[in-house]
């Protein structure tokens, strides 16, 4: 599977559009989830995903190491989401006020479960800073190790550790606020 994808990346680098289409199929889930979790807006996430792949299509011939494709693509998506987020910031803030609807969970027992009942994870995620959200998503959803995140975002390993911890603490605070 990995070898197949590597071969597809090589073909796509040469300009083979069918190969590139296969790459989109293989990575659209990863890219879309990442964009959606950072932007919390389906339409915007779709736009960013498409933009990221178009950007990838034109920049792919310049990619030196095919094995670095996924982390490179993740960096492209992250940058696009940061840009998009700047544009949407004010709008998103206003929308997030309206979005807070209580979702009750039956027989909630632990404090986290009780707080989840008050606010969904997605809503709470919207309240935490983008830098914190990004490292948490890279870890939880994309499954990157701390050292990979450090390399990908070009920040020290200690910063990754503390940022993930702060993100979790802030997320919990938001969930407890309800």
């Amino acid at each position, binding site marked *: 599977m990995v070898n197949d994808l590597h071969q597809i990346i090589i073909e796509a680098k040469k300009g083979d559009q069918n190969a590139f289409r296969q790459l989109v199929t293989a990575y659209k889930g990863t890219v879309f989830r990442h964009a959606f979790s950072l932007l919390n807006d389906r339409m915007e996430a779709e736009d960013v995903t498409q933009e990221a792949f178009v950007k990838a299509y034109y920049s792919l011939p*310049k990619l030196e190491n095919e094995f670095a494709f996924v982390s490179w693509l993740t960096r492209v998506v992250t940058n696009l989401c940061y840009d998009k987020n700047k544009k949407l910031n004010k709008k998103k803030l206003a929308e997030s006020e309206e979005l807070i609807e209580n979702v009750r969970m039956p027989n909630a027992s632990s404090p986290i479960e009780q707080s989840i009942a008050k606010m969904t994870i997605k809503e709470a995620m919207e309240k935490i800073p983008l830098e914190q959200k990004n490292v948490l998503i890279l870890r939880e959803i994309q499954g990157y190790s*701390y050292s990979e995140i450090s390399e990908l975002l070009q920040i020290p390993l200690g910063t990754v550790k503390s940022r993930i911890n702060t993100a979790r603490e802030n997320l919990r605070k938001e969930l407890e606020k309800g």
Partner: protein
Amino acid sequence: MSEHISGELLSSYIDDETDEDEKAIIERHLGICLDCHNEFVNLTLLKEQILKEYLMVDIPVSMEDHVMAKIQQSISQKSSSFINHAAIFVVLSFALVGMGATGPFLSIGLHIFNTLFSIAGGLMYAITSILSAIPYMVEAISAVIFILIVLAIFILRYLVNTLAKTVEAGDIS
């Protein structure tokens, strides 16, 4: 380990990012401290909830079609833009040649060219006369030109390297 485990260490432990020694200390502590154990359970639950929340997200089915359509669109835009520029260049060239060859523009153009050529010739003569009158001027100018060329090569290399890094980072559209 009598005091509680720090949030950062517990967070790293949940992510399996601690070394074997830290892991052993944390596990021993979790076995005897209810507060830290509860914190561990809550963080683990939070982690699971995040994963569940985003894995449930529906992925757009027609993403491939949209991406490929956008690529085709940008390719055709680029090629039509090139054709337009080429067409404008050809038309303007023909127009200039036509005007120059047929109308009064030919004599005016030749006159202007002749005057400019005379001015340039005069300037060249004056400059070379001044330069030859000053001792070591030619050597000094040669040295300055050489330094400028070396400086330009260094700047060019730096720019190329920066551009390559930017492209690799995916910042160039």
